[in-house]
């Protein structure tokens, strides 16, 4: 069909039951539109989106040789695709179509029938004047490269990577620490089942290592992300661990042989509660099961003057390499799953709880290590002063639900506090006092868990702890007073305890903003990564092909984390199986008269515009362009044109809506 042919428009207005027809006099509108130039057919129909409705259009196109179609009904978001498909079936280019919203923009927001009808007429006229200028466009297909990047090797990243690998996808799993496992690797038991965290996690960690589809890079970080959905180019920095992964057998003879006879450096994995040597394995089940050398404490790396007894011990395995350098690698993947997790709240920000001041005040993660059989005390709850506590207070909501710190509820603290209450009691027989504001135990089996723990005989006190201070009558024994109002009794309680456990909040990672920028994602006000829709697109981000899993999207427990990781894997898998993505053709392009002023380049929110230095002109990458139009409006010489929004289309639409 060429532009020379006379324009023959078919116009259809939908009743949408009474949704539209109840307010807009659809028959009058149809009669009016029939009188407009170019209109060959004008009808109203009860449900345009129904099969008979679509049939109607199809038949008219053939019988009346229509070459343009306008439908006045609901929002294009809902049915634009439906109608485009219908006219395509009749052999017409799907973009010879314009939709008019007379429901959300009209019948649902107006009450005056006469005025609503006039508005519908004006909107219909605008579309009828616009549609003759439409050009045939083509939906482009962009291939999706194989390969998925999973960022973060906590339980979320591990589960997503295994799911994808199980389906035959190639996965790069990137973790910045020396081992995968994330927070879960630090726990002893997990609520609500109280099953051993290592027993359920370490098999999955080993499976990651065993999978031929997963490339595991620990001690690695992303430094740059380029490209677009289906074709992301990711630059990775692999930090030197001074040990060749493929050669190390994980025997740890080097650790024993280190010139430091005793471990004397603060052990990060145990949050400083234990000690390690300069050469160490973060924990026995670490994956990869290889050692790492810390350049801050290793004598050889600091001064080059060590006897290097570790090297000797390693012998002809030759796994230790003091010359190892940082490596920069670029990989190409089709999709990305971000699973960077959370950090715990720094309890020094609530100074009235004495964290960092009184040695017997611990945060919950430290206590997770203390109750852990592979932790620094071998699972004995021994405090910094060498004693076993007889009375322990657990303070809920530290850094949660508080306008002075974080406004959100961290969701897992009540439950892990109950878990710790049980575990501490089990290990020490101590009296446990849980101070809570509201006991929040949503989720399957969680209330039952609460009932179980409560019936074990914890003291549950409803009141936010106001103050923790040394017992003045106790001298230097380290006994603390926990002061709060028991709001159910209406009494102030001052409970003497030996140990205080702070149920600290879950917060966004400190580098969340950098990661957000790199991957072009959004963050909510709290700083967690934002999902595209809180209900209907919970693992999608606003950038196509980038998905979220786990606590980086918001605090959640392990069951929810794993469910979300599975969902993110499925989304990535779906894209990759399809093999291509369809590109809306409403993209912008730069015309030849571009003066090369570059003013559009920084304005594009999707970084789709680059500068061609040879031609001295801006170039728009079609695959990245989302059709927002920002550059079009900004170009001082009017040298950017956007499909479906060309000047003549817009101007005739405006004329149409204003003419009466």
């Amino acid at each position, binding site marked *: 069909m060429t532009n020379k042919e006379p324009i023959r428009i078919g116009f259809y207005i939908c009743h949408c039951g009474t949704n539209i027809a109840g307010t807009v006099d659809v028959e009058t509108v149809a009669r009016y539109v029939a009188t407009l130039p170019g209109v060959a057919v004008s009808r109203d129909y009860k449900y345009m989106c129904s099969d008979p409705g679509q049939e109607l259009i199809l038949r008219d196109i053939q019988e009346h040789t229509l070459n343009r179609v306008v439908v006045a009904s609901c929002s294009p978001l809902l049915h634009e695709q439906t109608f485009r498909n219908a006219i395509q079936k009749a052999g017409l280019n799907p973009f010879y179509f314009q939709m008019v919203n007379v429901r959300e923009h009209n019948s649902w927001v107006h009450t005056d029938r006469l005025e609503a009808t006039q508005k519908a007429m004006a909107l219909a006229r605008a579309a009828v004047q616009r549609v003759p200028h439409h050009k045939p466009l083509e939906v482009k297909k962009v291939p999706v490269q194989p390969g998925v990047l999973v960022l973060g090797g906590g339980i979320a990243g591990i589960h997503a990577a295994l799911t994808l690998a199980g389906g035959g996808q190639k996965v790069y799993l990137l973790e910045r620490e020396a081992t995968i496992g994330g927070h879960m690797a630090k726990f002893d038991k997990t609520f609500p089942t109280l099953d051993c965290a290592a027993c359920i996690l370490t098999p999955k960690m080993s499976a990651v290592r065993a999978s031929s589809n997963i490339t595991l890079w620990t001690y690695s970080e992303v430094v740059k992300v380029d490209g677009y959905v289906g074709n992301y180019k990711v630059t990775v920095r692999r930090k030197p661990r001074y040990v060749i992964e493929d050669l190390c057998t994980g025997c740890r003879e080097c650790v024993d042989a280190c010139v430091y006879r005793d471990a004397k450096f603060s052990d990060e994995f145990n949050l400083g509660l234990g000690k390690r040597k300069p050469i160490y394995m973060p924990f026995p089940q670490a994956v990869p099961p290889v050692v790492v050398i810390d350049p801050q404490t290793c004598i050889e790396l600091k001064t080059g003057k060590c006897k290097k007894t570790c090297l000797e011990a390693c012998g002809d395995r030759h796994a230790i390499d003091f010359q190892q350098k940082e490596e920069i690698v670029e990989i190409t993947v089709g999709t990305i799953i971000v699973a960077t997790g959370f950090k715990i709240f720094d309890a020094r*920000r*609530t*100074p*009235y709880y004495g964290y960092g001041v009184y040695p017997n005040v611990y945060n919950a993660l430290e206590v997770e290590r203390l109750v852990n059989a592979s932790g620094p005390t071998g699972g004995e709850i021994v405090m910094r002063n060498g004693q076993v506590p007889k009375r322990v207070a657990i303070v809920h*909501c530290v850094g949660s*639900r*508080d*306008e*002075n710190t974080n406004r959100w509820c961290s969701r897992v603290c009540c439950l892990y506090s109950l878990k710790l209450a049980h575990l501490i009691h089990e290990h020490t027989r101590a009296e446990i006092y849980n101070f809570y*504001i*509201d006991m929040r135990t949503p989720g399957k089996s969680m209330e039952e868990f609460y009932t179980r723990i409560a019936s074990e005989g914890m003291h549950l006190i*409803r*009141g*936010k*702890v*106001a*103050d923790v*201070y*040394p017992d*003045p009558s106790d001298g230097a024994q380290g006994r603390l007073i926990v*002061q*709060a*109002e*028991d*709001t159910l009794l*209406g*009494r*102030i309680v001052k409970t003497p305890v030996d140990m205080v456990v702070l149920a600290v909040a879950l917060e966004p990672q400190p580098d969340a903003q950098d990661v957000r920028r790199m991957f072009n994602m959004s963050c909510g006000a709290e700083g967690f990564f934002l999902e595209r829709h809180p209900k209907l697109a919970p693992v999608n981000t606003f950038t196509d092909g980038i998905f979220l899993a786990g606590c980086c999207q918001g605090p959640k427990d392990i069951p929810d984390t794993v469910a979300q990781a599975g969902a993110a894997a499925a989304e990535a898998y779906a894209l990759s199986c399809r093999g291509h993505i369809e590109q809306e053709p409403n993209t912008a392009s730069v015309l030849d008269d571009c003066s090369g002023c570059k003013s559009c380049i920084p304005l594009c929110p999707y970084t789709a515009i680059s500068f061609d230095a040879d031609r001295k002109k801006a170039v728009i990458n079609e695959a990245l362009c989302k059709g927002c139009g920002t550059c079009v409006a900004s170009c001082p010489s009017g040298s950017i044109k956007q499909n479906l929004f060309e000047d003549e289309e817009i101007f005739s639409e405006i004329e149409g809506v204003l003419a009466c």
Partner: protein
Amino acid sequence: MVAPTETLTCQDDLTLENLLQTPEGQRIMSCIQCGMCAGTCPYGEHMNYPPRQIINMLRSGLLEEVYQSDSLLNCVACYACLAKCPRKIRLTEVLLPLVKEQMFEKLPEVPKELQSALQNTLRYGNPMGLSPLKRTDWIKSLGLPVRVLQKDPKPVDVLWFVECQTSYYPRGQENSRAVVRLMAALGIDFAILGNEERCAGECARLVGEAGLFDTLRERNIGVFRKYRFNRVVTSGAHAFDAFKYLYPSFGFDYPLDHTTTFFADHLNELKPKLARKLDYRVTYHDSCCLGRHNGFYEEPRALVNAIPGVKLVEMVHNRVNAICCGGGGGGMWLDTYYKSKGMERLSDRRVQEAVATGADVLAVSCPYEISRFEDALKTLGYEKKMIVRDVVELLAESLRE
């Protein structure tokens, strides 16, 4: 650290009836009944209706019952509840004064000491009941000139609002003399209102005597309007609060400082003049008004640390968690009443913590605290162990002679 509370001035036209329609009222509706306020209140265990309960009663329409109780006489306006409330409800400065006002009207009997302090303030402009004519007596023994605006009304840079304790009470007067010496050393152009000055009225307002406060505020603002000056500096931590939060809705709009923050701002010029080494081990008591209410935790410490020889040590409860001296919100004149109820004096509690640090000087920045802590040290038999000094007194002591 806990962020200092937002510095919103207090609306004059709030009543308990219209409160819930205001943004402040909506914040009150968001109370989660966590009990932080009651738990942190230094007298929480003696209140039938601690702040949490008051909100509960307010929301249930049962506030009438609260007025019948004298429970809120135990509130010493220490801002602890306000500073730690997870919903940032402005208890000490908005809700509690409104409730106290109602309670005060219905009190069968106002405790005698408080009654006479309030009457004195109404009659003489100071709670001691001393003649306004004697307000400047402290200058006589000073040996340095102090300009009084009434006698010499030409424009001045700093209007120094001395306040009552620091004008009349002998130990307070030493604070004033120290301020003059520091001002002189810095070459500051300052003057005082002299006999025209009246109590700023913050305690009257916070104990529930809104009428008396209005009278004092009107009178002081009238006097301010007579003269030309660039800023107000006051020695009173409570006066500072009054000017900052309660006077603005009445047209007070001068730049404002407390002497502590004023000298902290001049620390660079002051430092070279602090030549005398003071071999003190000092612990600093955060005044409720300057600390919790305004977030000035570091300024006074910076001043103390600037004095050569001084070693600063902290008490168990410091900064946002400091224990009130018990003098705010009318508490200054309720010691006998509290004693009759079997309640411990907060200044006693505080002084025990101070002594436990091993310090020999308890540094303060609110004029109420000097007398309260000196008294407590005496009662507890610690007067040989520890002395009380205002931060400005320590600075003046360290000045090159």
